[in-house]
């Protein structure tokens, strides 16, 4: 048995943060990762590769195509393609059972999904933290904006966030580097929307991508596909940001190729004492000890681990005296919005592949006259404008010299946007362990998750309001869409937004929640969960920065409690 001060399970967005904070506060920390090592720069094997060096020219590898054989689930996401497939898990290494379609996108490497995330970062507001209390869905959050605001600032200053301050109560401003520019099409649409709807705002996306140097990382050079890895460290990832900080303390040990089978619990002390790990290559089992354990394995992997950690005291999963562990699974629902073309602006163009788009903050159900009666909570939009490229040539009549001449110039402008809607926490959206096991002897998760009436009603508004705004901005050929098809068909089913969260929620009452206000298990004081599993509601904004802020805050609390001898 090898003993550390702290064990962190997972090395993605929250695992990296936990490792950085705990080591910087003096704890000898073991960070355990099920996937392979990925070394910053060296292992970004497709970074800056020109298209002609990729045999399939960076084809999107959809389900059923050659090249996607080992990724039948991962290939469902539009992100999955020739140039980044090596940063997604081979599905047979982490199978699960879908009661209804639920797409579980997973990384399988040091850095986890921090290498391939969307990088959009928005603070929650008290509109979000008070939502459960106000409308009665879910349990009240044990924290409010004031509790987390300093931690948002702390995180933003370290990871680097570019964006524009708006002074909106529902989308608090942060510590921003200068925003990226909008293009001419987006400026035109912004002007039109803000003129027609004074309470709506179009801003450039707030992204964890640098526009100024920070801690040895360089500003974005606009090559485009961040998810291949970034040698200049211009977007936040474990490799670019938290891992070097943790390693600089000389108190970090990273253990890749090691999946945690279960957390070891000592009923006499009512403490976790360590973890049981399976080497994914040799299948050998090894135990590691620590005084405090942080679970940052990603929402569903963390909850699976807790469910698989049983003992006479916790026969239904560790720290599950409440019985709510596994329940209240959420994801954002998206792929409902609108698109249209923009006339003119043909002497306007842009330079650089900006890995960012525009954002329209939530404007529904802010407690004002605009409130809707047919659904609660709200949504925001992400989108962007661009000029058509050469790809249009495959979809229009004409060939030969005429076609080549036409494609020499960019085509007309078009604008598109998709809503990201809040999902209510529902008990009947849940995961459980099945009686099948994976190659490491860990039971497979069975996932039960569907959209409810509130999400489906909200989607209608997401599409209609997008169309209404594009019309108001003067766009032509405006079409609305909703990719949700229902009846168990894939289209916009839960999981697609890759914002899965909940299943080990925070709350005030140990009888109805797993974690307290500091992400500490109500039942077991030295066990912390700081990834998406902790979420008690989902807001409509991208969640990762909130996970980071909660992680940093929880680490601070854990170390204080250790010092006080309470853990």
């Amino acid at each position, binding site marked *: 048995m090898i003993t550390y001060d702290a064990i962190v399970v997972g090395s993605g967005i929250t695992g990296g943060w936990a490792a950085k904070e705990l080591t910087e506060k003096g704890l000898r920390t073991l960070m355990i990762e099920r996937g392979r090592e990925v070394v910053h720069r060296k292992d970004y094997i497709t970074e800056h590769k020109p298209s002609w060096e990729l045999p399939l020219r960076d084809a*999107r590898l959809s389900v059923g*195509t050659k090249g996607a054989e080992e990724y039948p689930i991962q290939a469902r996401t539009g992100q999955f393609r020739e140039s980044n497939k090596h940063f997604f898990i081979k599905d047979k290494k982490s199978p699960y059972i879908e009661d209804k379609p639920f797409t579980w996108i997973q990384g399988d490497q040091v850095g986890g999904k921090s290498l391939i995330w969307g990088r959009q970062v928005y603070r929650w507001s008290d509109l979000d933290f008070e939502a459960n209390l106000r409308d009665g869905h879910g349990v009240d959050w044990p924290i409010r904006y004031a509790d987390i605001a300093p931690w948002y600032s702390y995180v933003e200053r370290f990871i680097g966030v570019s964006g524009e301050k708006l002074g909106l109560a529902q989308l608090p401003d942060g510590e921003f580097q200068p925003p990226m520019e909008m293009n001419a099409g987006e400026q035109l649409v912004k002007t039109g929307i803000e003129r027609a709807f004074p309470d709506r705002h179009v801003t450039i996306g707030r992204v964890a991508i640098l526009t100024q140097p920070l801690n040895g990382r360089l500003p974005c*050079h*606009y090559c485009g596909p961040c998810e291949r890895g970034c040698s*200049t460290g211009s977007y936040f990832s474990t490799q670019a940001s938290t891992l070097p900080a943790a390693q600089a303390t000389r108190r970090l040990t990273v253990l890749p190729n090691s999946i945690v089978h279960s957390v070891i619990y000592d009923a006499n002390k009512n403490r976790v004492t360590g973890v049981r790990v399976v080497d994914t290559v040799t299948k050998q089992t090894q135990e590691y000890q620590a005084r405090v354990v942080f679970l940052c394995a990603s929402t569903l992997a963390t909850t699976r681990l807790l469910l698989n950690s049983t003992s006479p005291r916790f026969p239904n999963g560790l720290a599950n005296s409440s019985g709510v562990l596994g329940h209240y699974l959420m994801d954002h629902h998206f792929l409902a919005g609108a698109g249209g073309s923009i006339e003119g602006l043909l002497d306007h163009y842009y330079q*650089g*592949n900006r890995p960012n788009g525009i954002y329209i903050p939530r404007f529904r159900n802010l407690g004002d006259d605009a409130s809707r009666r047919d659904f609660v909570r709200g949504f925001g939009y992400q989108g962007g404008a661009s000029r058509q490229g050469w790809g249009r040539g495959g979809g229009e009549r004409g060939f*030969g010299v005429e076609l080549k001449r036409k494609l020499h110039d960019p085509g007309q402008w078009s604008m598109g946007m998709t809503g990201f809607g809040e999902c209510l926490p529902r008990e009947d959206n849940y995961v459980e362990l099945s009686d099948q096991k994976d190659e490491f002897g860990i039971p497979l998760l069975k996932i039960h998750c569907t959209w409810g009436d509130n999400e489906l009603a909200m989607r209608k508004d997401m599409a209609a309001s997008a169309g209404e705004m594009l019309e108001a901005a003067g766009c032509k050929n405006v079409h609305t869409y909703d990719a949700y098809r229902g009846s168990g068909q894939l289209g916009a089913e839960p999981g697609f937004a890759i914002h899965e969260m909940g299943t080990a929620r925070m709350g005030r009452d140990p009888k109805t929640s797993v974690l307290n206000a500091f992400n500490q298990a109500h039942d077991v004081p030295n066990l912390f969960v700081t990834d998406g599993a902790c979420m008690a509601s989902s807001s409509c904004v991208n969640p990762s920065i909130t996970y980071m802020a909660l992680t940093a805050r929880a680490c601070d609390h854990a170390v204080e409690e250790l010092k006080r001898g309470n853990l």
Partner: protein
Amino acid sequence: MEHDDLITRRQALSRVAILLGGAISAPTLAGALDAATRRSWIAPPQDWAPRTLDAGQLELVAVMAEHIVPQTDTPGARAAGVHRFVDTLLSDHYPSPERDRFVAGLADVDARARSRHGKTFVECTADQQVALLTELDEAAYPAVRIDSPRASETWFFRRMKELTVVGYYTSQVGATQELHPSPFGAYRGDIPYSSVGRAWS
């Protein structure tokens, strides 16, 4: 198969550009590379051989592709190796039924040429080839959009044209000679189009 995302995926150059520190356009970089490297981008590796198409089918694809994106003041589809790209996709990406459907589409093109002119498509004169392709193009992209069953009959030509366009504009020739990649460096959201004069690849 789904190359629609490629439309917006303006590929940049090699990591060399980063090492050199910023905004270096493709031609500049190409000029910095030795001639052998540049030749290797255009010429097939010596041991290259088609794995799905036979020699006749490969030539048929090359001839059709060159009609779709011909040589002008810049090289066309054949010089860009579009036919090799098509064979690669058919071999390494297409599900088998779709691959077979594409190959059957090639046979259909030859059947049309034979019934019209008594020769294979490749043996037809350039004018005859263009006339046949014009028929296929007009059927595939009707002025008024009609859904299947026509769509199924015209699947082959739409796919052939899409593959040619993708194969050409993602090739070194198409991406750096006919068009230019957007240079690394700053992002400028609103510049006069006249200052660029061609689409980014």
